[in-house]
């Protein structure tokens, strides 16, 4: 059974998703970090990236398509990376503009966090965003993330400098926000 929230599910990427993943990648509003520019990715490039993922039992990353359960519509992509097993992980999310404001991003984020804390047993989850993306900061805060670090003028986008922002949420902070779940891992 895939990871399911209240209105979205997180599932593996499929070949049919390629055009939609490409649209996210080539849209300046959703493409993510400037390191991935320019927005000229092609379908063959995206297919090769998908095909290049190897099966492995030691995984330090995961990529999930966010799919709306009601109609199977593609909402976006959520991923985790830099997993240090049972310790820390970093997440990132990108949703199609049509889904903004629908609550889908929050549901996807909450669903992934539940998996990370309850199934991967991490002690802290981190995410990077930047000062030119207040929506991402608000989305993170809504799940309980706190500002960890603000790198002054460390980024540049659309003609302006901005701060790089790192946010984090400790394991016990997540459980405090979800009293419906008991933490069976003893504190450090």
């Amino acid at each position: 059974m895939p990871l399911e929230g209240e209105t979205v599910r997180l599932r593996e990427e499929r070949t049919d998703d390629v055009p939609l993943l490409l649209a996210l990648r080539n849209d300046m509003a959703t493409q993510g970090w400037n390191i991935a520019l320019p927005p000229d990715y092609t379908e063959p490039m995206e297919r090769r990236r998908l095909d290049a993922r190897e099966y492995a039992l030691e995984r330090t990353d995961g990529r999930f398509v966010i799919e709306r359960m009601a109609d199977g519509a593609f909402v976006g992509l959520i991923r985790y990376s830099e997993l240090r097993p049972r310790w820390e992980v970093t997440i990132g999310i990108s949703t199609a503009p049509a889904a903004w404001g629908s609550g889908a991003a929050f549901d996807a984020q909450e669903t992934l966090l539940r998996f990370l804390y309850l199934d991967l047993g991490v002690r802290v989850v981190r995410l990077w965003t930047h000062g030119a993306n207040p929506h991402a900061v608000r989305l993170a805060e809504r799940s309980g993330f706190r500002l960890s670090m603000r790198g002054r003028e460390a980024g540049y986008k659309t003609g302006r400098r901005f701060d790089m922002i790192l946010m984090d949420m400790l394991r016990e902070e997540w459980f405090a926000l979800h009293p419906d779940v008991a933490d069976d891992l003893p504190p450090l």
Partner: protein
Amino acid sequence: MSTFIGRHVRLRRPESSDVPAVLRYLAHPDLVGRRNLTAEIDEVLPLGTGDVEALFAAWRKSRREPTLLVVRREDEEVIGHATMGWDWDPLAPWVSVTIEPEQWRRGYGSDALDMMLAHLFGWLPAHSVSCWVPEWSAEGLAFAAAHGFRECGRVRRAGLRAGKEWAYVSLDLLRPEWRGSREREAADAARG
């Protein structure tokens, strides 16, 4: 001109013959947890020759994250390593300096950091240079502050040390701040 020859030390690329010297200083107990090794070489466990050889191999491959050895000019002894990285964005590179503890407080680390900053601000379009120092490293925090770095946050639960969790202190230095400090140093020097 870009130079990696400072007052007390010079910075140069590692050579295979440096493996024993690097292994020697990395084994120092006071460097446990703060070896600043960019490859997947452990920061805590005892290291062997194979680990340092693997480290050198990783260092050789990192074009945008060069590691240079810190070599004392008076006797050419290898006493540490210094890394700068712009793999994410040359606008915002990072630096780290590791000096053998027996050689602390002699100006060697400052020399190395000054040379790296001169390279990053003088030869790359860096605007903000960062460093991350464990909060338990009083020496590291004092060193960063002495060079004008300012705290910009704490990365909680970065690791465990003897059973106690700790955070990284993130610090940064902007180009105008670095330039200002250089101008002040030059003015002080001119005044004698």
